[in-house]
């Protein structure tokens, strides 16, 4: 007795599958479509997530922004509704007292200014920043450089222009570094151009910003040592949400408000935003797998069903095979191999087709994100298919095994 898998076995399988091309095609289509759906959804979901993540690009993921506001509780003899403000001393204090922080960067802003350069105008939001602000929001420097610590210390009248401001003021393009633009009554020398376009940014879109050393802004607009916001980023591994109590206790002690007064000090934590997006996509992924696996399973059940019918139709044929020397195991392995071959062939077509379609989608999306599934996803899908093929073939194969040689005689 033979029990090898060889070319002849393959031919036996091929003969049986090709005998009824239309049925084989229809059966295979279920698997093909199931696998295509699964992989296409996986690729699509991944690409969409990347596209959405683009919005957060350049923005440190564990950032917290502090803003002062009126108190909402009476405290130590002081009435509620009192206004207080963050100061530059708070920046120094936080740097000294909270070793978990990587960057503590103040921002002093001014809106409603108009900038002029050789007859061109633009309406920037002026953002006074410190030399380490680039660690909070990474710029994409097109020309020149970013604001440095030295710029801040020496109160240099320099600026870095955002993309849209640059386009408005310098419509002819080219490197504007060294040129002077007029903002209100002062002239600021351009030292860089920032091309970043992330939509999540502090105090307005970075394309509309005019970045200036905060010491210059404070002096120009008579802010004293008051700052509008303080941005802090945590060192790697630090969870910003767990730092909130510490910040509140430091600031409330200094500015005398109730440490439990959450309205007096607004703390915006990017971790929360990211976790919302993450959760959203976890949900989307779950749906993708549910739908994809569901479709695939339906395909496998289809294969199983049709093979079941096929086996019944082939009773005489199987009986003949048994009469001329096939043992039940020959029949079993033949049916299972047929099922596996069918699912694998149809599934591979599904893999190839989804890869092609995802390529097209990626091209349509102008290659802004990776929609293509990974090699290992494809391998995993193929493995899953083989398992499905065996399972789908199992019930029909067991039925085929029950065919007795006499059944060949009881024809039609």
């Amino acid at each position, binding site marked *: 007795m*033979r029990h090898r898998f060889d070319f002849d076995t393959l031919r036996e399988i091929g003969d049986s599958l090709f*005998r009824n091309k239309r049925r084989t095609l229809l059966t295979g289509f279920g698997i093909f479509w199931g696998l295509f759906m699964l992989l296409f959804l996986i690729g699509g979901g991944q690409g969409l997530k990347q596209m959405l993540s683009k919005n957060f690009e350049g923005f440190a993921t564990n950032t917290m922004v502090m803003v002062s506001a009126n108190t909402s509780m009476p405290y130590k003899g002081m009435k509620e509704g009192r206004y207080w403000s963050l100061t530059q001393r708070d920046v120094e204090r936080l740097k000294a007292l909270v070793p978990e922080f990587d960057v503590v960067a103040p921002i002093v802003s001014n809106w409603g200014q108009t900038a002029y350069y050789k007859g061109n105008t633009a309406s920037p939001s002026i953002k006074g920043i410190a030399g380490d602000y680039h660690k909070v929001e990474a710029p994409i420097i097109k020309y020149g450089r970013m604001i440095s610590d030295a710029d801040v210390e020496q109160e240099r009248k320099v600026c870095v222009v955002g993309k849209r401001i640059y386009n408005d003021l310098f419509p002819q393009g080219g490197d504007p570094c060294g040129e002077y633009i007029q903002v209100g009554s002062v002239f600021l020398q351009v030292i860089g151009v920032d091309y970043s376009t992330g939509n999540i940014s502090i105090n307005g879109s970075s394309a509309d910003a005019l970045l200036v050393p905060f010491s210059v802004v404070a002096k120009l607009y008579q802010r004293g040592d008051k700052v509008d916001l303080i941005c802090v980023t945590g060192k790697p591994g630090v969870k910003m949400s767990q730092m909130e109590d510490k910040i509140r206790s430091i600031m409330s002690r200094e500015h005398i408000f109730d440490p439990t007064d959450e309205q007096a000090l607004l703390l915006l934590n990017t971790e929360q935003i990211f976790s919302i997006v993450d959760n959203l996509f976890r949900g989307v992924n779950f749906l993708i797998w549910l739908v994809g696996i569901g479709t695939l399973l339906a395909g496998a059940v289809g294969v199983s069903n049709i093979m079941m019918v096929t086996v019944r139709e082939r009773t005489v044929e199987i009986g003949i095979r048994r009469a001329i020397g096939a043992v039940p195991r020959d029949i079993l392995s033949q049916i299972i191999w047929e099922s596996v071959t069918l699912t694998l062939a149809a599934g591979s077509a599904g893999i190839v087709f989804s890869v092609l379609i995802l390529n097209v989608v990626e091209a349509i999306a102008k290659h802004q994100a990776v929609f293509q599934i990974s090699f290992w996803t494809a391998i995993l899908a193929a493995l899953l298919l083989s398992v499905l093929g065996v399972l789908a073939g199992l019930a029909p194969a067991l039925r085929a095994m029950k065919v007795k040689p006499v059944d060949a005689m009881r024809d039609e």
Partner: protein
Amino acid sequence: MLIELKGVHKTYDNGQPLHVLKGIDLEIEKGEFVSIMGASGSGKSTLLNILGILDNYDEGEYHLAGKLIKNLSERESATYRNQMIGFVFQSFNLIGFKTAVENVELPLFYQGVNRHRRHEAAMAYLEKMGLTGWASHYPNEMSGGQKQRVAIARALITHPEIILADEPTGALDSKTSVEVMELLTRLNREDGVTIIVVTHESGVANCADKIVHIKDGLIERIEDNRQHHSSMFGTDTIMK
């Protein structure tokens, strides 16, 4: 003694039991040419299926080449069928999506004979049947007589000691019936193959040396036909 049946009973039980074979005693020597005759429903096919280990029996004993055929495993019975017995059926029972030569090769495929040798052997037997030109044709492209000769080639390819044929001429006209019976007779005379043919037709039965008459599940009589005078239509004709 090649085949030895003692008190073989067979009852089909599909809802209500049907006692088909009611104690068959039969002995067949190696090299004999036997035909089995009887009315429709008398149990001829049932007996032949038991002889071919295609079906089992309920009572009695069946010895094939000295071996008691009872409660064999699927594997054992498959091996006996594959190596000792060749089958020829009324409806040919070729596999429709395989060509003539592939059909003939199939028993060797299940023996594990390699492709090349299988093909050669199959071609040799087709040639013996005068079907060389039909090797790559599918059954539905062939006449009944050709199909039956393909089936005989398939039965012969494993060099069986016994050929069991259930109404091999049942679907053939008289001319091809004669051809097929001549073929079987030659196999018996020249190669010493034991041949057992179930038939309704006296002309077919007349080719055999021994005619077993079955009636109601019992052997009515065994006719010695070595003179081949059984058919009233003469020795060499098969009247339809």
